[in-house]
């Protein structure tokens, strides 16, 4: 009986250690830094100011909703990621780039990681991820920020 309880306890400890490790790894594996997250209000301000230097904005999700953004399609698909790669290949490494998806929170989004990893691997120096914590409706459309036609 004692051995059984001990084994169970040991299993529980091992499982929880693994669970914690996996969780923390997932957090660490985000291919962006907090400084690379761009607040929607800041982008909206730039878009509303014709005199401001405009970034190149790529929609890497379902639909190009942000004003002036280029529709790449979901970058979870290899063909769309390749399209993005080709477009990026023509740009100087210090180009001001913004990517966004906005389907759902980052933890569930299949598109933001492949795109941010690509930008990192191509050694771009000035790229940001639009911070849409919930989705593009709540964090962009509902706020009345500029949208594409």
């Amino acid at each position, binding site marked *: 009986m004692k051995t059984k309880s001990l084994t169970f306890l040991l299993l529980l400890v091992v499982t929880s250690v693994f669970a914690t490790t996996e969780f923390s790894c997932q957090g660490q594996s985000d291919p962006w830094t907090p400084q690379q997250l761009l607040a929607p209000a800041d982008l909206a301000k730039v878009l509303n100011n014709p005199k401001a230097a405009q970034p190149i904005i790529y929609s890497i999700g*379902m*639909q190009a*909703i942000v004003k002036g953004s280029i529709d790449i399609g*979901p970058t979870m698909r290899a063909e769309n990621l390749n399209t993005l790669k080709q477009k990026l290949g023509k740009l100087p490494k210090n180009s001001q780039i913004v990517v966004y998806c*906005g389907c759902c929170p980052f933890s569930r989004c*299949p598109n933001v990681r492949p795109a941010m990893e690509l930008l990192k691997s191509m050694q771009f120096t000035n790229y940001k991820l639009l911070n849409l914590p919930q*989705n*593009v*409706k709540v964090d962009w459309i509902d706020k009345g920020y500029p949208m594409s036609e």
Partner: protein
Amino acid sequence: MRIFALAFALLLMGGIHSALMAQPTGLVLGNKSPEIKLTTTKGDTITLSSLKGKLVLIDFWGTWCAPCVEEQVDLARLYKKYKLASFTNGKGFEIYGVALEAKKPNWETLITKNKINWIQVSDLKFWRSPVAKAYNIQELPFNVLIDGKGFILAKNLHGKELEMEIGKNLIK
């Protein structure tokens, strides 16, 4: 006496007016669900109000939303089980699937793959859909259960909770 009669008439008119106005739409339980008029993959228009008389689950989903896609399996089971059932507030059960999609092919593929045999509609406007605004959708999956008269019985129930809510309305 005349004054009383006038006051009574005014009160009565006020009452009728309130009764006419007293069908607030909006996402509060007991309110009338906002009308939806969207098209199927084949281009046919189906309104939510055309399902009057049935218990209806309005399922907001998207092919890009993993939990929504997973839930379709459970919805298929519920649909089969309750489609022809009689409820205290509706005869038969229908699912009105509203897809927040941007392009038709993904949506069509998933309907075929998951053998979805209930109503599927979309305006292909993704999160810009006026329906997402009308139903104040904050995230997916999201659903609304309405009775035969279109009044909201429940919001955003899933799994066992959803089945219990449907079961509660069954005629035993």
